[in-house]
């Protein structure tokens, strides 16, 4: 057995889950959803939670609901199941094939990726690009956070130890919106070195980049360049790469960023 010992809790309702979490949070209690990051971290003993609150048995958390132009993705929706109507669904499909490999996508969750806040997370990038919101619960109550107020930096969020993400909400894209995604990784399924999302047309332009900085972000300078007529994708890509906070001498990563942004834009154009 590789993980250090812990106590295991398998609540059946959300109320029970947040009650247990409130009780065990002071003793390094953690929420277990897909487990595709937490369990390997425990195997390596980088994480040694005293308690795991397994939310996989909580009824209703595996649902995707679409209402009023918003897709709501529950806390236990697996990567493989993430979907939405229209261009948003197409963008999600483009992105999710880059998340590790099939067996990881069968277990890992969308909301778990947000809570984990890896700089190379595709779903964090999507959430930032689309100004997603997250529903957070604890025994103390509920709150709704803009994703920009959730993600602090690499592997850091503003979640309190007794809080859990219940769902993420993303506004759907209008039918005529055009979407593009590009990711560069050294090996198939590996963490991205750089990735970019572009939305053009209705509801655009939106341009966001991930992996190179501690957290994904939109690039307003490049978005402004995309509003020019005629639009110059190459110039916008240079603007995007120039805006990144990278060591000045790191020409390779900046060139990679420019290429990734340009390919995402060309895919959307």
């Amino acid at each position, binding site marked *: *057995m590789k993980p250090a010992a812990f*106590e295991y809790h398998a609540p059946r309702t959300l109320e029970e889950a947040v009650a247990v979490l409130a009780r065990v949070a002071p003793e390094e209690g953690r929420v277990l959803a897909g*487990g595709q990051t937490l369990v390997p971290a425990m195997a390596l003993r980088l994480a040694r939670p005293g308690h795991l609150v397994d939310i*996989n048995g909580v009824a209703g958390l595996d649902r995707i609901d679409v209402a009023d132009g918003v897709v709501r993705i529950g806390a236990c929706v697996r990567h493989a199941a993430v979907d939405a109507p229209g261009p948003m669904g197409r963008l999600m499909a483009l992105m999710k094939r880059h998340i590790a490999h099939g*067996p*990881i996508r*069968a*277990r890992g969750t969308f909301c778990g990726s947000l809570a984990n806040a890896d700089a190379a997370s595709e779903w964090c990038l999507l959430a930032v690009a689309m100004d997603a919101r997250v529903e957070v619960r604890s025994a103390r109550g509920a709150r709704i956070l803009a994703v920009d107020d959730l993600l602090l930096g690499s592997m850091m969020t503003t979640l309190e130890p007794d809080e859990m993400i219940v769902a993420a909400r993303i506004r759907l894209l209008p039918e005529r919106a055009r979407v593009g995604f590009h990711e560069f990784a050294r090996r198939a*399924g590996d963490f991205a070195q750089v990735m970019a999302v572009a939305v053009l047309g209705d509801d655009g332009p939106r341009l966001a980049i991930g992996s190179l900085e501690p957290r994904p972000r939109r690039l307003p300078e490049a978005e402004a360049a995309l509003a020019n007529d005629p639009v110059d994708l190459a110039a916008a890509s240079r603007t995007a790469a120039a805006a990144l906070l990278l060591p000045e001498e790191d020409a390779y990563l900046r060139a990679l960023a420019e290429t990734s942004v340009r390919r995402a834009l060309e895919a959307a154009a």
Partner: protein
Amino acid sequence: MSAEPVRTVAFGVNGETREATIPVRRTLGDVLRHDFGLTGTHLGCEHGVCGACTVLLDGRAVRACLMLAVQAEGHEIRTVEGLADAAGALHPLQQAFCDHHGLQCGFCTPGMLTTLVEFLADCPDPTAAQVRVAISGNLCRCTGYESIVAAVLDAAARMRAA
């Protein structure tokens, strides 16, 4: 630390209900091997990267090293031991691996087979490129993958004809 927390779990393994009282920190891969004696599931990296421990959870390929066994409660697990039929005849994929030398040391083979059982159910007539994507999460250090891809394409053809 007080006494090791344990829990009694029951889940299906290759069509039979199995029960065990186990430490809650024991992974599904360890329970299959150590508690149930099903050593066909191999544990390589034990952090989800190598793919050797892949098993089918309700028909979906998952890493047995990244699931706690207590999370399998009420579910159905299929391992490499459950691929051959009741009379012992190899699954068409297993036979094709044998015919095409799709293995040398055999360490990756159980994970390759379980991953590919799911893949061929979803995609019965794949291209070689699709097969390569399907096994991109399974490391093989012997074959160079060529013989594995040949075996999968042959197995797919045999399964379509059956």
